[in-house]
């Protein structure tokens, strides 16, 4: 494995000024190869703006952006709508911004589980399918840097876990740097190496655990939020069903979670350590 090459992209006290106010200011951060960096923060805290500076869509009004020369970028935007007037199949969409060979397209589609959708029109996909298609397209580009703006929005809880698994796998297989914007303050994927918490500026950053216990994070989101910053490094040994009941790994269904259940939304995660998850989680989901 490569060891600590120069950062893929670096922001140095960068800021964007629009209509008389600073959307973000003084943001310094970097993304290295093979690293997952997650941006969290309340609405309007400048997460997308920061990502757009990293991508070069927005030029900072102060500070600077340094991108590695020849950096190959893939971007999964927050919103992308394709209306009826545009005939666009998944396989054409895979080749939107550059040539992709059939083999590359097929392997990206099969690893995201959308091979059967190759001929389908993009506008007819469901939310979860569409996010997978977006990821497949990004993968097929073989990027050095992958920027994901709220990749799990509109996807249900189970789908969310599967997408996070997929993102981790992309990082592991392609060894690219990933900048991820999380739509949910309280949920950060386990594979995240660094969390950067924004609120118009970098409020705090560090490992998910360090951020959750930092005073700035608590001040911004309140102690209750801090105590519920859930990190997906749990064994998901139970699933919440739509009717409120809970299905456990052994197949039993109960009205509530057991106290010994691995993860649910209000437990205090500081109190105990979880083992790193492996394939057992996947096995459970498929069980």
């Amino acid at each position, binding site marked *: 494995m490569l060891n600590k090459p120069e950062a893929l992209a670096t922001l140095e006290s960068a800021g964007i000024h629009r209509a008389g106010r600073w959307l973000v200011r003084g943001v310094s951060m970097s993304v290295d190869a093979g690293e997952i960096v997650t941006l969290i923060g309340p609405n309007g805290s400048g997460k997308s703006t920061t990502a757009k500076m990293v991508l070069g869509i927005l030029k900072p009004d102060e500070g600077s952006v340094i991108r590695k020369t020849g950096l190959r970028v893939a971007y999964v935007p927050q919103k992308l709508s394709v209306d*009826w007037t545009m005939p666009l199949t998944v396989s054409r969409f895979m080749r939107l911004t*550059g040539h992709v060979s059939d083999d590359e397209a097929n392997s990206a589609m099969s690893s995201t589980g959308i091979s059967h959708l190759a001929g389908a029109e993009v506008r007819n996909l469901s939310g979860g399918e569409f996010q997978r298609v977006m990821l497949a397209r990004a993968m097929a580009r073989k990027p050095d840097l992958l920027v994901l703006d709220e990749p799990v929005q509109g996807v*249900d809880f*189970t789908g969310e876990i599967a997408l996070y698994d997929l993102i981790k796998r992309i990082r592991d297989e392609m060894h690219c740097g990933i900048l991820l914007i999380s739509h949910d303050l309280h949920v950060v994927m386990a594979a995240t190496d660094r969390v950067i918490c924004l609120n118009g500026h970098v409020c705090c950053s560090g490992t998910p655990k360090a951020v959750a216990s930092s005073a700035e994070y608590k001040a911004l989101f309140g102690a209750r939020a801090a105590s519920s910053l859930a990190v997906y490094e749990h064994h998901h040994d139970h*699933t919440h069903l*739509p009717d409120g009941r809970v299905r456990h790994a052994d197949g039993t269904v109960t009205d509530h979670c057991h106290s010994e259940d691995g993860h649910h939304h209000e437990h205090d995660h500081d109190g105990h350590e979880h083992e790193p998850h492996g394939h057992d989680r996947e096995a459970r989901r498929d069980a």
Partner: protein
Amino acid sequence: MLDDFFTRAILAGIGVALVTGPLGCFIVWRRLAYFGDTLSHAALLGVALAFLFEVNITLAVFGVSACVSIALLLLQKRATLSADALLGLLAHSALALGLVALAFMTWVRMDLMGFLFGDILAVSKTDIAVIWLGGVVVLAILAAIWRPLFAATVNRELAEAEGMNPERANIIFMLLMAAVIAISMKIVGVLLITAMLIIPTAAARRFAAGPEQMAVLAAVIGAVAVIGGLFGSLEWDTPAGPSIVVAALCLFVLSILPVFSRTGAKPAGPDSGSPRAHKGARP
């Protein structure tokens, strides 16, 4: 065979249709129908200026349309008025300026109707050469910027992030539009050019499975409309330009008839927003 006015008209019309089809796709995808209108209305100002400075009409129209496109790009960046209000302002002031300027030039005796509705039956061999040469150039440039332009149409920020330079593609596209207005004004007239951009494209949508296919289909449908319209105009003694547009409209109506439902538009597959079992319980 070029000595026959009817053959010349058909050749000129097909030349125009082959260019307006692919460009029209972008007009429809990007919801720029009113932009096409604005440019073609501005063309009349170009005609007036051509008479005033005694320059080539096609060149003058191209120049004015290009200026209007650039003005629009700049005004949109400042964004004081909404885009449609800006377009309306530019379209009708350019049209009015053109009409007023022509009225001042009392020494000019011109057939205003010919510019408003086109005079395809009067095209010369030179006109045909201009249309086909200009058309080839426009299509070649469009092919060269196709990928970035299409990517930017799907999502501008995505295209920009992945290094496609959508800004440049946009400006080139606007200039191509100006060129198309200039070379096709004589065929269908300034009031009906937008129809040639939009109607064949709309008719093609139903049968296209991909963007490139849609562009080719739009060009073919436009050419068929030209031939049908011209023969209809000969048969029933109707004005040629409007007849072509009516023929295109007929093709569009045909295309939306349920008889052709879903032919090739979409492979049968898991789509159509059918309810998915991905919400909630997993088996």
